[in-house]
């Protein structure tokens, strides 16, 4: 199909999203996209959701941390931000979400907000609540396996 004339092309904003999960959680691109659309549909309705678009352009997730670029129609960024904030779990795994920034081009978005080196994670035993427990340590963050389930701690807690 022929390109639209420039003044009729939709204008986009690209939202850089940082993702955090428990270290043993695995979330996939399709699941994340589904969660995004689902949350937008629920919060904004079908009409608002179609306006905001929220197409996932790139996605990466490993070791409990990830990032994504979400395409949003210009002028609906606030709606999109609200919908993104309402993504609380993907495939049953709780996720923490942070908007790192917004750009007008994919390239600027990637250069400015993406590909931050994340410290690699290691498995080791840490002292927590007076006992040795296995934990996954990534930078300052430290996900401990306790009797009550997973506990998010920091290295400041365990050292």
């Amino acid at each position, binding site marked *: 199909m022929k390109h639209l004339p420039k003044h009729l092309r939709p204008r986009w904003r690209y939202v850089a999203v940082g993702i955090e999960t428990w270290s043993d959680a695995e979330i996939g691109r399709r699941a994340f996209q589904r969660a995004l659309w689902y949350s937008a549909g629920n919060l904004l309705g079908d009409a608002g959701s179609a306006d905001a678009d929220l197409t996932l352009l790139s996605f990466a997730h490993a070791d409990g941390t990830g990032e994504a670029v979400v395409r949003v129609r210009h002028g609906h960024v606030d709606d999109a931000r*609200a919908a993104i904030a309402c993504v609380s779990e993907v495939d049953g795994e709780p996720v923490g979400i942070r908007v790192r920034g917004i750009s007008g081009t994919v390239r600027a978005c990637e250069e400015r907000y993406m590909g931050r080196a994340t410290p690699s994670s290691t498995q080791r035993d840490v002292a927590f609540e007076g006992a040795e427990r296995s934990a996954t340590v990534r930078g300052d*963050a430290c996900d401990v396996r306790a009797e009550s389930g997973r506990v998010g701690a*920091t290295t400041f807690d365990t050292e």
Partner: protein
Amino acid sequence: MYEAVHAYPDGEATVARHAATAARHGYDGIVVRSRDALDPAGNGGKSPGDRGSIAADRDESPVRDPDALREEYGIDVVDAVEIDADDPTSASGAVGNYRSDRTVVCVVGGDDALNRFAVEQARVDVLVRPTADGGDFNHVLAKAARDNGVRVEFDFGPVLRATGGKRVRALADLRKLREIVGHYDAPYVVSANARSHLELRAPRKLVAVGEAIGFDAEAVREGLRAWGDLVERNRERRSEAFIEPGVRRGRYEEDGC
């Protein structure tokens, strides 16, 4: 802006993890609602009575000292307590117990008698989750809350995390609460009621969610700032120089008269 969180053992993340995440999100401080998560401030790091004093002696994990956490993460960490009682009588006892050693005292609402009790007690700082579990809020409570300076919480938790009918009911309750509180100018706070670091959301996102469900953007910001104002006021009241509102001990001009 401040956010009030549930920390381990009540929630799934320790105070330190909450503080680290909140600092990244751009908050100025966190109010820790869980009773067992922090040592009360202002006692030289030692808590009176129960279990805190034993823990304070050794190198503890998770960290329970608000001052150490404040220094490590560069944001304010406030000791608070959430009183979840079955009836007003036991709530009243608990408020009396905790008022003197916690900076912020919240009462969990959710039933009509407790909501009524909380807004009529000037000793209570915040009535949290007033409409959860079928509790109701009306103009009488709003007026009492305004007169006693008790803040009413708008709980964004179910909006962010629930789905379906539960969420619809939460939204309907929020709208009703918003209309009543707005009409009587009762003080309020806003919180996402995060139980883990993953449930924390940045202030700007809470504002966006608030706007999407009908709140004024400035009202949500005001509600997040209100935690900070509350903390500042209570810290001043607990300081030694404070006698009563308008009267404080301090230096004065000696050669004036």
